[in-house]
């Protein structure tokens, strides 16, 4: 494993958050599940990192590790540094005024992240009172201001309502207000809009963007949709089966993507300006089980550019451009990648035994 991604290292300022060679495993009856397998990234203050991947790619586990929310039986390795402090050491010392103050998180489902039997105002005020020792009335005033900032109409009235009285979009705004209460430096948003309607989704993402800019916050935006992070993240990390596949600044990732998985993710989603009945290029098969992971690249079983070495050697994360790393033996847009794809097309089957027929039919019709 190439120890540390080249990303962020070139930056002059020290990164706010630095994650190095993070491993998270869970012991199960079937064996050790490697949910996160050697993930490294640096995040400069004020930037947004987008983490993209399908379910089971380890994006949420990464976020929960940062937030110290993993169950006690999780096996964590590697280091996490926040503003020069060792986060994992803090976890064992029990620093309760770090999480929720310096680093906070917004979860996917706003209904389950709110307490159904407590008024919204009390829930927002709670963190102000616990962490910042505000009095009851101070906290209540501040909670009202926060609701106003996140665009909740009639904030004073809403303070007295219960979560079930609010719509999904309003609930997510309340959750965002809660997470902003102690003016965090880093906000982790884990699929904040997946449960919401498309019109509301846009408003919530725009709101997060505005707040980040106003407050100079750093943000990690986790999603399964490349389209969501495209206009919003400074950097994007693509994860698959617990590993980083590719990481680059957003413009580079979309203009010069190197990893076949990133390419496949983009090609498999219909875009709104595509004509009807445009054939989508599927990603065959499904993500691997994370118990007893095979040698080689974990995407090789579903990859069009698979070569023999992909089945035996795990590709290291290598620098392939300024601020751009990728873990692939046969990257897209290189001679090796083109050769591997041509050879597979010729043979009609990849070294992993994947029938190329599904792809060629689509490529030809396109």
């Amino acid at each position, binding site marked *: 494993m190439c120890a540390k991604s080249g990303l962020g290292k070139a930056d002059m300022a020290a990164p706010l958050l630095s994650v190095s060679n993070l491993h998270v495993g869970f012991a199960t009856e079937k064996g050790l599940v490697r949910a996160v397998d050697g993930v490294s990234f640096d995040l400069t203050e004020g930037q947004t990192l987008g983490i993209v991947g399908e379910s089971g790619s380890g994006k949420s586990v990464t976020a929960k590790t940062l937030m110290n929310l993993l169950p006690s039986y999780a096996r964590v390795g590697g280091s996490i540094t926040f503003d020069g402090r060792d986060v994992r050491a803090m976890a064992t010392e029990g620093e309760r005024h770090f999480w929720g103050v310096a680093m906070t998180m917004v979860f996917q489902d706003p209904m389950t992240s709110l307490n159904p039997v407590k008024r919204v105002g009390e829930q927002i005020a709670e963190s102000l009172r616990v962490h910042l020792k505000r009095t009851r009335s101070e906290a209540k005033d501040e909670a009202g201001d926060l609701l106003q900032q996140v665009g909740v109409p009639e904030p004073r009235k809403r303070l007295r309502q219960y979560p079930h009285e609010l719509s999904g*979009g*309003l609930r997510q705004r309340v959750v965002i207000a809660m997470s902003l209460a102690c003016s965090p430096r880093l906000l982790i948003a884990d699929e904040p809009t997946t449960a919401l309607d*498309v*019109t509301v989704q846009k408003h919530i993402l725009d709101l997060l963007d505005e707040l980040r800019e106003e407050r100079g916050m750093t943000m990690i935006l986790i999603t*399964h949709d490349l389209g969501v992070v495209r206009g919003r993240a400074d950097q994007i990390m693509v994860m698959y089966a617990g590993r980083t596949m590719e990481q680059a600044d957003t413009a580079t990732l979309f203009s010069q993507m190197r990893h076949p998985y990133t390419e496949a993710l983009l090609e*498999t989603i219909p875009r709104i*300006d595509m004509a009807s009945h445009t054939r*989508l290029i*599927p990603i065959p098969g499904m993500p691997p089980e994370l118990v007893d992971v095979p040698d080689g690249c974990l995407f090789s079983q579903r990859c069009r550019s698979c070569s023999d070495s992909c089945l035996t050697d795990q590709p290291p994360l290598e620098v392939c451009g300024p601020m751009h790393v990728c873990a692939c033996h046969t990257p897209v847009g290189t001679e090796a990648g083109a050769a591997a794809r041509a050879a597979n097309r010729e043979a009609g089957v990849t070294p992993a035994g994947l029938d190329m027929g599904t792809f060629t039919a689509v490529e030809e019709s396109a």
Partner: protein
Amino acid sequence: MAGSGTAQLRESDKMVLRVENLVMEFPAGIHQVVHAVSDISFDVQRGETLGIVGESGCGKSTTARAIVQLPKPTSGTVLLDPGTDAEIELTAKEGEELRAIRPRIQMIFQDPISSLNPRRRVRDIVAEGLSIWREEHPDVDVEAQVDEVLTAVGLDPEVAASRRPHQFSGGQCQRISIARALALNPEILICDEPVSALDVSVQAQIINILEEMKERYGLTLIFISHDLSVVRNVSDRVVVMYLGKVCEVGDSNTLFSEPAHPYTRVLLASAPEPSAVVDESESAIGDELPSPMDPPSGCRFRTRCPRTTGLCASEEPVMAKVGLDHFVACHFPGSP
């Protein structure tokens, strides 16, 4: 908005389904009624895919259920093979007569795992419809038919048929649901958010299978989704719904390249990667959907619409033709 009217219905003998003035209301407490679907009309031509798109709560799923008479709509008619000698008014049928028609319309649901009985083997799940209709179709070889549909959706019957649903992933369970729906050789397949619960990488597999099946079995699809890009991709014709009303109906490419209803434009501007045909600022509308128990007067979209005037509150817009196979219910259609 969200309007009424039947201008969008087509005169043709190739229609397989026509829904006219469909109303679905549910009682809610004392003297209160949820207006889930209010006076909508559309038709589906044989072999085409009709997409229904809208936010949650707009009545998409209720419409689908009303078509299969589960439950029966409050008023309105659903016609199979309209205008032909074989015309059947589904809304007028009951009991055994209705049951006899059911195999012709099948459904696939959003959550593939909860729509399969976890205790039964895949073979029994897929064969259930066939075994129920055994008497009517004595010459059908159930085993062979099950093997055929399973193979068609990309599962190996040798391996898959004897397993139970929990042994499959979400995408594979959705394939099993499709196989179950196809086993009875339906004419119309209603897909209610069939890919919303699936991972992005699996979504394209299922969409491609539906397209293949449509061709192979000559199916007519009604495809319901909140995802505009998916709907555009699979549909020939699209219906945009808002709060129980139809806003806009049209040929898929026309509707997405020249959206005329302000709500359609909002939807297009709100997509994660907004469409190039609208301005991103058009997405700026309120979040709150009005209550379906007390919908706004006139045009139902007026409370969130950027173009609203007094006329919109007093008079409900009626479906009007704005282009070849393109219909809109709005007093001020077109680009702003």
